[in-house]
């Protein structure tokens, strides 16, 4: 008899905070600079140099805490995490350990089988390390410390996630949230949003957790999914083969699609955390926190709920539309200009617009068709100038350059035929050209109605108003 296994996952997400300068220094955080030109004396850990905390990084952490309904600590402490690594200039990372700035919150994730609340243990401020480069330097590695000292918010979930899919849904939720809050650009390719996954398995129904492995530095949703699935399979195979899981840190190799132990972490680390004597306790007063609360935007869950309530959209549609703030704003602008027609707007934003954006690998902010232009197009469907089918053609032409729907409709003669006598003339021609089908229809073959609709639409190049065609055909075919 085979045992049923349950997967247990906790994520540690590192969100790079979108400050201009570093967490403890006035160096720029801009991505992609020449090596080490954005590493000043603080970032290099020079003798005699001291850290001074960036107010904006603190504000951003508080924004996140408020958004997940967490406790924002009135007093938090910076600690030193001590270990030697060439990209860690001081030989310690300034982080928060026993007293983080954000404690105990949660977010809701929605899956096909319903919604689940995922606990967030804590979120704390810390500095990023630099980068080690290994290519083309022979027996050496090169150290670039531009990234050293970049502010990070480490968001630690409870081990509440039960599958790779849930982990992805949770990670996407946090990704959405940090971008709504404008505290992180969410750029995963540049490493602005990445995570470590703690993965273990246990017999279903057991209370105690299995031994976990930590998979480091996953920087895409796809890698998170593949790494977790590989790791779960590896652990189950190991356990079913009578082996034991060893607690260790592993790396995901995306080329080989597998995880392997990290050699540099083989030696057991003892981080010797202690309060950083260079940084006094961070004290936040109620006024500071409330002032930040007042600047919070409408959050994705609130927005989705409003779309359901006010626009009559389904929960699924609302969720998709609010996955990014820009997307939701685009949709709302279209609805606003149309003066309603929420479902129509939602379908177009989630359908054609999303499809074209994906095809061309564009962000919504780069869309050649803006909210105003899309609203202009949809207005022509609403007022019957064109059919939905023609609208798709118009949309494609607009995407290609002429962004104005009316101009495309006029230039290409796509205006819908709504003149009854004109449609009647076409119907008469179709009936004359298909005597056999007409006879069959009249002898009871109702199914042929569709055939005649098709012929009429073909003859009008799709421009005939479908409702009128239906009505007139029914009358004329009946004889």
């Amino acid at each position, binding site marked *: 008899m085979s045992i049923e296994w349950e997967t247990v996952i906790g994520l540690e997400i590192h969100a790079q905070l979108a*400050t*201009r*300068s570093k967490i403890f*220094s*006035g*160096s*720029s955080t801009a991505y992609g600079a*020449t*090596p*080490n*030109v*954005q*590493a*000043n*004396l603080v970032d*290099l850990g*020079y003798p005699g140099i001291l850290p*001074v*905390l*960036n*107010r*904006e*990084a*603190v504000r951003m952490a508080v924004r996140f805490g408020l958004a997940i309904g967490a406790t924002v600590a009135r007093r938090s*402490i910076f600690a030193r995490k001590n270990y*030697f*690594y*060439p990209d860690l200039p001081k030989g310690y990372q300034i982080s928060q350990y026993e007293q983080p700035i954000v404690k105990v919150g949660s977010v809701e994730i929605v899956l096909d089988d319903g919604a689940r609340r995922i606990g967030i243990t804590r979120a704390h401020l810390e500095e990023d390390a630099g980068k*080690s*480069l*290994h290519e083309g*330097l022979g*027996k*050496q*590695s*090169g*150290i*670039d*410390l531009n990234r050293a000292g970049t502010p990070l918010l480490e968001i630690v979930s409870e081990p509440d996630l039960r599958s790779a899919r849930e982990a992805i849904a949770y990670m996407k939720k946090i990704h959405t949230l940090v971008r709504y809050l404008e505290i992180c650009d969410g750029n995963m390719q540049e490493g602005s949003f990445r995570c470590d996954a703690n993965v273990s398995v246990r017999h279903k129904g057991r209370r105690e957790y299995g031994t976990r492995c930590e998979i480091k530095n996953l920087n895409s949703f796809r890698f998170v999914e593949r790494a977790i699935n590989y790791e779960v399979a590896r652990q189950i195979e190991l356990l079913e083969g009578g082996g034991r899981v060893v607690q260790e840190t592993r*790396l995901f190799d995306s080329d080989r699609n597998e995880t392997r132990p*990290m*050699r*540099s972490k083989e*030696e057991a680390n*003892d981080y*010797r955390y202690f*309060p950083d*004597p260079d*940084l*006094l*306790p*961070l*004290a936040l007063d109620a006024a500071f926190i409330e002032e930040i609360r007042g600047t919070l935007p409408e959050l994705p869950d609130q927005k989705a709920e409003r779309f359901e309530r006010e626009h009559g959209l389904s929960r699924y549609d609302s969720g998709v539309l609010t996955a990014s703030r820009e997307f939701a704003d685009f949709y709302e602008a279209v609805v606003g200009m149309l003066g309603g027609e929420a479902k129509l707007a939602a379908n177009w934003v989630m359908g054609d617009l999303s499809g074209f954006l994906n095809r061309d690998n564009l962000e919504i902010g780069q869309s050649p068709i803006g909210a105003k232009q899309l609203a202009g197009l949809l207005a022509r469907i609403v007022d019957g100038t064109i059919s939905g089918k023609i609208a798709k053609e118009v949309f494609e032409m607009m995407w290609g350059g002429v962004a104005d729907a009316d101009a495309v409709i006029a230039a290409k003669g796509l205006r819908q035929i709504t003149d009854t006598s004109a449609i009647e003339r076409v119907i008469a021609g179709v009936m004359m050209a298909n005597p056999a089908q007409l006879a069959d229809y009249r002898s009871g073959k109702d199914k042929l109605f569709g055939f005649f609709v098709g012929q009429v639409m073909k003859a009008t190049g799709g421009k005939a108003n479908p409702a009128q065609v239906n009505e007139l055909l029914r009358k004329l075919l009946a004889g």
Partner: protein
Amino acid sequence: MTLTRRDVEGIALLARLEISEQELPVYVESLSRIVGFIDQLSTATTEGVEPMAHPLEDQVQTLRDDQVTEVDHRDRYQGNAPLVAAGLYLVPKVIE
């Protein structure tokens, strides 16, 4: 409490300090004495006492504005570095 050779070797590794065979017994002896000396702390009654990490207890962290104030001084700073190439600090190959 006394420390063993193994203890001292472990501490030296954690602290990344090369200690020679000749030096090792000297450190075992002196560190053991220091540990014995600081063991006196166990005689103090500290139940309910808040640990003190900083001498000015009522001071709190001051914050700076989020402004880029630094300019590039890479070449000057790298003048102090033992080994650089192409703007990178070089170290023996790091194995992840």
